[in-house]
């Protein structure tokens, strides 16, 4: 755990800075005045009981929701209110809590969709099948194969996503997200429904990704073993508010957190 913290590059700055962000649905305040930063190169976890506003916060970062108040800056740019596809283009990719693959497309095609915005070819080029487009397509397929190799799914390239086992679907979703060449990867409960062995492998995989690709990772996770083992920093939400922030050890010692959440989590673990 401490090893993970020490391998994190020194904060050359914060990759993502959210200031005073709130999201209100009708009368419900889902996220309330949250200040939140993600240091470049770190693995940050967002935890909290169900309904604490974690996924809402994710959705604000990725452009699915427009924040009611506040600003989100990423890599020096204001991305508040940008559309989801624009957010991807500045370098934020995500996975979904309930896996959202393109079920009737093959594993390779799913990854190719992730590569979409990096391909320059236009539709008329595709119709005329210009040499540029042909070359780009060949490169994209090679790249997709590499990404599938990275997550250990190369043998499954031609399998329809819906026919993959659960664990493979989770990994394919990560490969698809990586295809967008993100600087920041958001993982929404990546180990949900996994057994301890699968969970351990996925944790190692995420740590490895950070090391190999220089990624910054934001994680929503319920499994406290994962959170404590992998995170450089943990932020705790409860009822839409940030109740604690700090290193895993600090958060673990925080009485409010223990009261709100971790007491039960630690007892179960």
């Amino acid at each position, binding site marked *: 755990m401490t090893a993970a913290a020490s391998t994190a590059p020194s904060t050359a700055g914060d990759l993502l800075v959210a200031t005073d962000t709130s999201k209100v649905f009708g009368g419900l305040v889902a996220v309330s005045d949250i200040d939140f930063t993600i240091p470049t190169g770190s693995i940050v976890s967002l935890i909290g009981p169900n309904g604490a506003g974690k996924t809402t916060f994710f959705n604000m970062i990725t452009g699915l929701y427009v924040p009611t108040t506040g600003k989100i800056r990423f890599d020096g740019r204001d991305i508040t209110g940008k559309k989801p596809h624009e957010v991807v283009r500045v370098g934020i990719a995500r996975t*979904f809590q309930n896996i*959202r*693959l*393109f079920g009737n497309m093959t594993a390779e095609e799913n990854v190719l969709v*992730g590569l979409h915005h990096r*391909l320059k070819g236009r*539709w008329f080029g*595709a119709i005329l099948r210009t040499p540029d487009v042909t070359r780009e397509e060949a490169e994209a397929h090679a790249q997709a194969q590499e990404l599938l190799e990275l997550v250990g799914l190369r043998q499954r390239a031609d399998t329809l996503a819906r*026919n993959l086992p659960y664990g493979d679907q989770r990994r394919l979703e990560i490969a698809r997200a990586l295809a967008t060449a993100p600087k920041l990867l958001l993982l929404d409960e990546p180990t949900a429904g996994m057994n301890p062995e699968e969970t351990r492998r996925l944790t190692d995989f995420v740590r490895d990704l950070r090391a190999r690709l220089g990624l910054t990772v934001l994680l929503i996770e319920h499994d406290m073993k994962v959170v404590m083992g992998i995170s450089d920093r943990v932020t705790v939400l409860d009822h839409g508010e940030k109740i604690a922030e700090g290193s895993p050890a600090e958060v673990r010692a925080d009485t409010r957190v223990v009261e709100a959440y971790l007491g039960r989590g630690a007892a179960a673990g």
Partner: protein
Amino acid sequence: MTSAVRAPRPTIPNPFAGMDRRRRDLTIVAILLVVAIVYPVGYRSLEAALPFIPWPGTAVLITCATFAILALGLNIVMGFAGLLDLGYVAFYAIGAYTTAFLASSHFGIHISWWIVIWIAVAAAAVFGILLGAPTLKLRGDYLAIVTLGFGEIVRIVFRNLGDFTLALPAFLGGAILVGPNANLTGGNTGINPIDPPTIPIPGPWGNQIVFSNQNAIASWYLVLALLVITYVVCVRLRDSKLGRAWMAIREDETAAAAMGINTVTTKLLAFSLGASFSGFAGAFTGAYQTAIFAETFNFNVSILVVVIIILGGIGSLRGVVIGAFAAQYVNQTLLAFLGTRIFNQPLNDLGDATGIDLLSDFNLATYNYLIFGVVLAIMMIRRPEGLFPDEGAKAEMHGIGVAAEVTAGSAELLAAAEEAEAVALEAAAIEEATEIPDALPDVLPDVLVERGDVIDLADEEKPS
């Protein structure tokens, strides 16, 4: 006993065995093209030699190909992008009217058809965007209703613009801006005649080739060429990043956006590229018939194209083309043939004898939409993926493909279990008949099974 169950099925020798997929497909396409080119020339002799087969005439084939183009266009919207469009006929009408406006005496504009067709394509594409833009947030049923309305509006506008007056309201002076009784579209009488495409090649046919209904064979070659172009473009779009983006939107729009796909422009491209092919079909139809009437672009056309797509296999390009030829062949040749040769006369006689008008007037060909409806209903139940689906669609419609295989496998297992049960019962019967209670080991059959046991037949040969 079990060998009967396991006997290999007699196999039909596959002429394409050993070929890879691409080569096989190319071979089939090449054969089909040769048949398509030769057929209209030999059609009369075929019909004379084998009159009991309902051979489609060249004019029927032309309709088939026209609808194949329409179906391929709509397939981009419905099959690839997953947007249900029930007003596709609107773009067909727009393509046809564009041609009529620019190549007829109606306005006295006579631009060459070879240029007009591209203008028709552009016009249809523009209207595709105009329809697409306000409907972007709609899905499923709602989109279907709006597009249906659009199709009707376009038809009615073309009909009513044959006689209209555009004036300022009374409180602004009531000045007449256009008209009175302006004629933009010919109204119910349509626009007639339209200049057909021509190529100035002299020959036995005169000093130029004219592609109109006066020369069905030449027109067939023209529409065939348009169909081939459409097909190739569709294949290339499908295999491009745009095609993948369409399918991603069809599968999960939110996830597609989260992967960097601009869903707005991608859906608009589906609408406009899909519509542009109906510009092809419209420009051809207008010029081939040398006349167009608003009422021919009615709702039935939209429905027929949707039926073709579902029949052939939504999203499957070859399925859609085969579906178009099958549907229009049945519609225009087969039903008329079966009617006049077999069904109509006896039923009419029966009607005359019994005084039932429904039977006296019976004509099978007029029941085409009833028959399509029944076929469609059966298809939805028995084979929702269409007659010639793509692999993905098959899996989608029948749940997980692997599960289907497993089910097939367990059916086999079940059969094996039944077989085993029969063996066991027979063995029990032998045992009973022999009645040597103390000599059990000698008379026991090789297979010792209780009723209801499941055994592995592969192990049957080994002593248990």
